[in-house]
């Protein structure tokens, strides 16, 4: 009989009914949260914990307290890496205006424009490793195109990657190539959504050129600019592949960035100082947190204001 089954089911249901409003989102989130805690949150705390130990990854770990940090703040290589990270952050930002410029240039209806757009986007599609190799050949002493060019212009070639003062700029230039393409794509999609009515109206009001860009177009591109800045900042802070491929941190450590120095100390052939590597990771995490919290704060604020 159906009626006989109803009472227990209904009591079950009523509990579910009472709670499903707040429970359902958590149930849907649960797998994601579990993964996030396991693979993101807990390693962060493990790194913090590990940074107070001296451990080679094999034997016993010994507690050294803040020893790793004290050593770190007295380590010339750390400051070199930190300074290089600052250079990366500042110069990588050039990708945003450069991407915008190319996007505006490409945002027109010409025959075959799709082909040009994809060609400009190409550097972002190929792997960073390939970009690194291409640029190392470009800069290579004796036979590189760039070396030859400088030699032809000035008489003596400059081997960018062998010069401790220039090497970081050389690597950043290589990194900018794909990053500009990335920002360009973000702006191109943004430009598709710029409202033609407003442009029309602005034109009637006599806006042209830079004033049109600054007062009419850019405000409408705010979401695209925000994303472009975020990915560029994160890209600059986690720059690792290019440094590793192009110079391996050299010459004598002058192109190292924090993420590379951390890898070198903790995991490379001559490293295996897990605690010291973790201490560098913690510092890098703190720097990233400054930016990430800034971004999150801005996003929350925008959401409240209803953008």
């Amino acid at each position, binding site marked *: 009989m159906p009626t006989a089954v109803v009472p227990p089911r209904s009591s079950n249901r009523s509990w579910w009914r009472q709670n499903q409003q707040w429970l359902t989102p958590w149930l849907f989130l649960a797998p994601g949260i579990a993964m996030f805690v396991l693979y993101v949150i807990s390693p962060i705390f493990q790194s913090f914990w590990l940074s107070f130990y001296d451990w080679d990854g094999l034997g016993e770990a010994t507690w050294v307290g803040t020893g790793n940090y004290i050593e770190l703040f007295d380590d010339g290589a750390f400051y070199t890496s930190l300074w290089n990270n600052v250079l990366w952050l500042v110069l990588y930002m050039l990708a945003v205006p450069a991407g915008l410029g190319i996007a505006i240039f490409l945002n027109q209806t010409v025959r075959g424009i799709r082909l040009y757009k994809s060609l400009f986007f190409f550097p972002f599609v190929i792997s960073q490793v390939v970009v690194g190799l291409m640029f190392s050949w470009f800069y290579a002493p004796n036979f590189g195109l760039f070396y030859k060019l400088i030699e032809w212009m000035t008489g003596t070639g400059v081997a960018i990657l*062998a010069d401790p003062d220039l090497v970081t700029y050389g690597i950043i230039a290589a990194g900018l190539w794909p990053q500009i393409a990335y920002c360009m794509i973000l702006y191109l999609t943004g430009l598709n959504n710029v409202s033609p009515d407003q442009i029309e109206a602005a034109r009637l009001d006599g806006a042209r050129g830079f004033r049109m860009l600054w007062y009419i177009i850019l405000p409408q591109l705010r979401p695209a600019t925000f994303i472009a800045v975020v990915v560029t900042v994160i890209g600059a802070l986690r720059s690792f592949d290019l440094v590793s491929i192009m110079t391996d941190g050299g*010459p004598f450590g002058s192109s190292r960035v924090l993420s590379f120095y951390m890898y070198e100390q903790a995991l490379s052939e001559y*490293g295996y100082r897990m605690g010291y590597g973790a201490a560098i990771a913690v510092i890098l995490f703190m720097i990233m947190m400054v930016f990430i919290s800034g971004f999150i704060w801005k996003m929350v604020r925008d959401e409240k204001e209803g953008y």
Partner: protein
Amino acid sequence: MQFRYLAPLMALATTTVVATSALAQQRTLVINTDTSDPAPKAAFEQLIADFEAANPDIKVEWNLFDHEGYKTAIRNFLSADAPDLANWYAGNRMAPFVNAGQFEDISDVWAENNLGETLASAEASMTIDGKQWGIPYTYYQWGIYYNKDVYEQVGVEVPGNWDEFVANCARFEEAGIDCLTTGTKALWPGAGIFDYINLRTNGYEFHMDLANGKIEWTDPRVREAFAQWARIVEPGYITDNHAAIDWQDAAALLVQGKAANYVMGNFAVATFKDGGMTDDTLGFMPFPEITPGVPRAEDAPTDTIHIPAGAKNKEDAKKFLAFLAQPDTQTRINEILGQLPVNNQSSVGDDPFLQQGFAMLSDAYALAQFFDRDAPAEMAKLGMEGFQEFMVRPENLDQILDRLEKARLRIYQ
């Protein structure tokens, strides 16, 4: 790396399945090596085939790793899933594993087979705490390889000592040729130059004490070695931009006659010959004397095989090591490797560079392993960076030595 590592593993997996079903009686011996380059791979194929022929009841399972990937992999498999044998390197390079109790003491194999006598030249570098931890099976000499044509073109003689070498450099410079070439992008080639300059200036004992942290880097004798080095650095006799080139690119400069000398290991001979040099154009000389009367010691990095502490079949692993130490085994595999056998009763192939190397190492006063194997890993890395910096910016010497001294105080405490 994954592919190189997977393919042999998969091949191995299929053969093991076939083999175990057919010959259930056999015992298996698992060996992990990073000998993935053509010659070392062929040598190990031969070695394993010979061992299996001599011991029909043992089946060898061989896992071949990519050279770079192995350096990380060994740390994992030693503790997680230990094979019965694994290859590695002598000197301080094996110290972390020995100290962590991950290599087996095999002093008994040495004692039973009288290896203290036949492998005498490598005994010191295999010994930690008075015990032996592995079997050395091959090494090769370091020294100066030079382009005979360039010497002839400039009209200088092979130098008999450092002063003559430096004087030659001035002549090469006039002719627009790099006197000494090197490619320090990977850092280690620069350490070869330092090793020799320090060995020739201050001698073997001093060099080893320095590598073992017993001597200050700011010691006047260390400064003296760098002063000798500066004689070729400051006038610019070393290839420009060496910090951005690989050792193979520098080898090309020697082949093309753009450079005269190259401090290198014997493995580079194959590269020189691929580039078109022959026994008539390529020459080899021991690094010239600097301080008169200092006994001549050489760099001769040694490759070794060890038994992990977690091995399952230690009995047969020891059998394998005893087999590996035999003179005829070492003769055969080194013929394929194109290197020198460690066993002093082995014979050497008739390649002139091997013959020269064998003669040079046989009457050497002592053998060093190479800076990155003699010094602990961290010190090696910092040292090699310092050597590179010195060759680019010799004026930074004081800062470099202060930095190394600071590192020494921390690393060896």
